[in-house]
């Protein structure tokens, strides 16, 4: 009998963000659907508000990556008022932004991917958590992660202030400079972060790369898609998270297009499906050709793996070394293995740390002039950053008084949504045989989307105690036959 399986990993979202697996009569999978939650009403909410409030408002969209929204919004305001922030302001913004990247990437690797790669994808579900990770690698590593995160958070507080929604980014700069006497501390924290980044890569090397079983998962066809990749680059086509054009490479790694923020609508379009709230981003240059990969499909990926593929390298030496090792071990460029994203994430973490040090060592970072007062009448502005989960776009239009008349946000998970849908479908088809859907198989299907770290935090936080995961098995008439609570 045909049946439908639903994996609903989202708390407090009432049916949004789930996986539906439609099984066939032979015990295999006909199709698996991934759905992400909609962000309800934000564009309407922004309408009529002063544009300069947007960095504070948009940072409230998400309790997971508020800094990414804050920074994209601040850059959109720069563009809106056609004002160029002083060099010191740009450097401070980028320093803060790289702190955020390390903090976020560390959280993902140790808390989220760690259970899969350190404890094991088929391990008992009771052990597949951060406690299981600590059981394998030792408490001292847990303390190191918590200590590093605290140090980074304290530095962010020092720079941005200790308020829930800091007034930091302004059109044309930032609200306050860094004191000269704090620069030494900026360098110290960067040094600690570099050490932490190297340590994390070594841990990945020892635990994952040395384990043939894990490498088999990473390079498995089940987790492979030959798609386009997009990421921000600097003048030398090396990675940058804060500023630069977006570069797209094809499934063979050749540059398809490179464009600035004001051209994004010429290259990125959105496709709608009746079964999902999400608008699936795709490349206009190629077109929407359904849920398929290859050069004829406009589906693209963003986030760490995509960024490494889209760039020609890393601009810092230690990260570049790790980048070269990555492509050598994975068999050349581009790498299409979705599960290699966790490795790419660690390489990016090391880059962020090195970039922090470069910025902190530049005496200009403590220059007092950090704000250029806007003089132009506002009309339209676009701000783009690389969020940890991928390219994030903020686009505003205003009246002449700077009141928002249109706001368009394209978040990273939306850019990845079509490829995530491909990944879930392929993993479900490849892993479910003879109707066998045990806990280990479900976890391995979840791994297909977990690698992207799709962010559902845009909705709300979760009060502990709610059910995070529900699996429902339906017959061909969608009658619920069995329900499994995965918690």
């Amino acid at each position, binding site marked *: 009998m045909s049946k439908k399986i639903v994996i609903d990993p989202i708390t407090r979202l009432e049916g949004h963000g789930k996986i539906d697996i439609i099984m066939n009569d032979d015990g295999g999978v006909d199709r698996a659907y991934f759905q992400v939650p909609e962000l309800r009403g934000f564009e309407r909410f922004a309408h009529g508000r002063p544009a300069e409030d947007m960095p504070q408002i948009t940072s409230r969209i998400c309790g997971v990556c508020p800094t990414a929204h804050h920074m994209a919004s601040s850059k959109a305001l720069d563009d809106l008022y056609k004002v160029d922030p002083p060099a010191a302001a740009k450097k401070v913004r980028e320093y803060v932004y790289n702190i955020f990247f390390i903090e976020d990437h560390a959280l993902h690797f140790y808390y989220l991917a760690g259970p899969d790669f350190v404890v094991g994808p088929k391990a008992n579900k009771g052990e597949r958590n951060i406690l299981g990770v600590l059981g394998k690698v030792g408490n001292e590593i847990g303390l190191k992660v918590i200590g590093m995160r605290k140090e980074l958070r304290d530095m962010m507080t020092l720079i941005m202030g200790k308020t829930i929604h800091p007034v930091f980014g302004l059109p044309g700069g930032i609200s306050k400079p860094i004191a000269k006497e704090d620069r030494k501390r900026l360098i110290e924290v960067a040094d600690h972060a570099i050490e932490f980044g190297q340590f994390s890569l070594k841990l990945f090397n020892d635990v994952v790369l040395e384990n043939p079983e894990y490498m088999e998962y990473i390079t498995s066809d089940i987790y492979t898609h030959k798609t386009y990749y997009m990421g921000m680059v600097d003048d030398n086509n090396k990675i940058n998270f804060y500023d630069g054009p977006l570069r797209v490479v094809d499934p063979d790694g050749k540059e398809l297009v490179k464009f600035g923020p004001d051209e994004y609508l010429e290259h990125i379009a959105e496709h709608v499906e009746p079964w999902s709230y999400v608008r699936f981003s795709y490349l206009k240059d190629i077109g929407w050709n359904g849920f398929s990969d290859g050069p004829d499909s406009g589906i693209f990926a963003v986030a760490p793996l995509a960024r490494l593929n889209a760039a020609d390298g890393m601009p810092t030496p230690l990260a570049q070394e790790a980048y070269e090792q990555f492509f050598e071990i994975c068999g050349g460029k581009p790498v299409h293995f979705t599960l290699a994203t966790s490795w790419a994430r660690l390489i990016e973490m090391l880059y962020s740390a090195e970039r922090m040090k470069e910025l902190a060592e530049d005496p200009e970072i403590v220059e007092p002039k950090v704000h250029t007062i806007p003089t132009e009448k506002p009309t339209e502005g676009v701000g783009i950053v690389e969020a940890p989960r991928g390219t994030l776009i903020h686009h505003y239009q205003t009246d002449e008084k700077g009141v928002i008349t249109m706001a368009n946000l394209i978040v990273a998970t939306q850019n990845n949504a079509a490829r995530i849908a491909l990944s879930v479908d392929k993993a479900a088809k490849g892993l479910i045989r003879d109707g066998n859907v045990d806990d280990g198989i479900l976890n391995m299907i979840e791994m297909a989307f977990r690698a992207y770290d799709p962010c559902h935090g845009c909705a709300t*936080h979760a009060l502990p105690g709610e059910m995070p995961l529900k699996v429902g098995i339906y017959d061909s008439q969608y009658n619920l036959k069995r329900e499994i609570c995965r918690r």
Partner: protein
Amino acid sequence: MKPLVLCLGNDILGDDGIGILAAEKLTGLIDDRADVVATALHGAALLDLLVGYKQVIIIDAIKLTGFPVGSVIELNLDELRTVGSPSPHFTGLPELISLAEQMQLDFPEEIKIFAVEVDDPYTVGKQMNPAVVGSLRKLIPCVTAYIDWWQKRTGYA
């Protein structure tokens, strides 16, 4: 040491803003004897905020069934279920406590939770339900009474 009153929520998401509103009311009322912190952070990131305190009150929105909207529900940690979450963003308090115990972190010895039953904590820009706002009439005295009791019991300044 002062206790922490940790107010969770998002003030642009309809009823989810109740924790932030409670923080505004409590600041000035009890901040001489407790640290009042409002945050939209959640999951594992809360660990950073909790470490170092002995006593903590958490205020949050909740959506259960069987309670009228605006009800103030008092919970202890042992009443929370473990959340084996697929994401660190949704890591629950029980997991944070287990983690803190395993790593012998300086984690709160007492955690009291005051949750307000809400209607719609999902819609951006939606006005808060009047019954949810009305819950402050009960919530604020509950929190201040707890802080006062802790103060008398432990004698912190």
